[in-house]
């Protein structure tokens, strides 16, 4: 299975020059898509300081786009397009001794936070997938890389209802309250990468001559935040499932 995905991805990459020059023979289809992104930004290895995920809200993460596909015959083809989408999440976690730093201008407060963190992430982006496709009955299996350019970036939140031990666990204990003026806000929006890339795999299912539904998995390979940014210690990867529908013409 893994091999096949690699083969598909390689096929997609190799077709790029052909795609660009528009000399590929075979029939061409266009798909107009609407879909819903479902997922989050997750560390690959959850730090022990995160004790529980208390709430997780799906933000309105819609995708609208158009894809063009070429079939070369014998089932194989490639597909690419442009998607306008947003990916976001809103989560509340409980922490115990979670390393964090609040930076504001020239002042900073660094230490270990035990309490609650409300995290909001949202980004609007233009995504271009390049996928190898293989037709199997009414399904078109697709896989390949994607790149996203972020048009707007949000990574902010607040720490509340807990305390920060400054510097180390024996440092001054700063009680952080649970209302405005008593809690600590942070905004690292500028530290979100402008470009993301990742891998996508999924399938389009034809339901009728024109309509169909789709399911995809998008696995980010680049961390959400710039690697030069060290306040949030764990790299967070955007991992999203996308379900949607399309109209083919």
């Amino acid at each position, binding site marked *: 299975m893994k091999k096949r995905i690699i083969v598909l991805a390689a096929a997609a990459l190799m077709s790029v020059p052909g795609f660009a020059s528009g000399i590929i023979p075979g029939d061409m289809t266009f798909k107009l898509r*609407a879909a819903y992104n479902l997922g989050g930004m997750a560390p690959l290895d959850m730090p*022990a300081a995160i004790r529980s995920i208390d709430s997780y809200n799906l933000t309105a993460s819609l995708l609208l786009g158009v894809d063009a596909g070429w079939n070369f015959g014998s089932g194989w083809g490639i597909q690419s397009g442009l998607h306008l989408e947003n990916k976001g999440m809103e989560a509340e976690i409980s922490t115990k001794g979670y390393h964090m730093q609040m930076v*504001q*201008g020239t002042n900073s407060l660094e230490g270990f936070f035990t309490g609650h963190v409300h995290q909001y992430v949202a980004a609007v982006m233009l995504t271009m997938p390049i996928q190898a496709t293989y037709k199997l009955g009414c399904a078109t299996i697709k896989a390949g890389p994607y790149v996203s350019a972020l048009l707007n970036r949000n990574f902010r939140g607040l720490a509340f209802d807990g305390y920060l031990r400054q510097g180390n666990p*024996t440092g001054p204990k700063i009680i952080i309250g649970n209302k405005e003026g008593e809690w600590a806000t942070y905004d690292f929006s500028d530290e979100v990468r402008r470009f993301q890339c990742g891998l996508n795999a999924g399938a389009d299912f034809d339901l009728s001559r024109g*309509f169909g539904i789709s399911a995809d998995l998008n696995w980010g390979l680049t961390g959400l935040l710039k690697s030069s940014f060290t306040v949030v210690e764990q790299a967070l990867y955007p991992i999203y499932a996308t*379900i949607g529908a399309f109209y083919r013409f």
Partner: protein
Amino acid sequence: MAFSVSINLSIFADIKYLTMKKLIAILAILLAFVSCIKDEPRNSECDILSAEVDESLAEHFHNASQMKISDIASNERRIVFVVRSTASLPAAVKVSFTLTEGATIVPESGSAQDFTHGPVKYTVTSEDGKWHREYEVLFKDPSLVLDKLGFEHFEEETSQIQSTTRYHVFYEMDDSDSPRNIWASGNAGVAMMNSEWTPEKFPTYATSEGYKGYGLCLNTQSAGSLGALFGKPIAAGNLFIGRFILDKVMSNPLETTDFGTPVIKEPASVSGWYKYAPGPVFTNKDNKVVEGRTDEANIYGVFWRNTDEEGNEVKLDGSNVFTSPYIIRKAQVESLPATDSWTRFEMTFDGERADAGILAGLGYSFTLVFSSSKGGDAFEGAVGSTLYVDEVEIKYMEDQP
């Protein structure tokens, strides 16, 4: 095109209902695979949360509420029990502690120790074994009455976290030449956020240009961008008799000033010398300029009954220092006009007379407060306001002719 999109969306709505649950389940499995919640790490904190002596020592205390010390600030390294007389203290005293969960203490909690030769050192170790804190526990006599406060005595304290940051801590010497740590300021809160700060950069410090020798300098400062973030844009210079509770600096700044110390005399008046220059721009707690308002300095004193009817300790802090029903007498300097030459100030205590019996039993506490901005506790004032104070003298009712 608009047509096709709307049809797409209606199909989308149908399948959404059918498969949403399944998808979320798949996603949950996926995320669980990616990242599991780990086992809870063992505690790394190692604080003494409270300390108490057992009933058998009751006769050595003026007041049962002084036998347990419960609100120990996180930056505190000394735990002080005030007894009637250290001279009569037995050579074996058991002090029990509550600690951060899982932490251990050496010598053991509740073990008999000899406090008659000065402080006993205790070491607390965190549950994970990686962190230690040292505390000194001591028993001392009640504060003797001080009548002359010259701000000649101070030491440099190094910030617990910012090792390059040092600030002044004032103390007084009593008649028997022992230091009395009666003074507190908000310096520790400012130190938290600033590295490489020398004492003179702090809102509260000892100046060599006092009226006589060293004097007290208080100045209102910007609390920096981080202070503004918490809605605390300025830090007024302050000095008061009491303790500064650093833990509440962000969540409840009015409660950081744990005012007062028990006294055995009743204050009548306070006088001294001052210089004052208000800062140029007055700002409110949102850091917005308030046109036409000039900053004012503040000097006041409060004397109150420190135990309620049920024998509980009555604490005064910034939230109730003017309003508590337990206040017996108070005084405030009416106005401190701007002046750049040393000028005399005086204030007289008004209110009821104290009960002699309660007074002898340390049932009253007293605080004296100096601030470079009157509204500093509400984060109102002018950056740059500077108050100098020196040669303060307290007169007591008992000493009146």
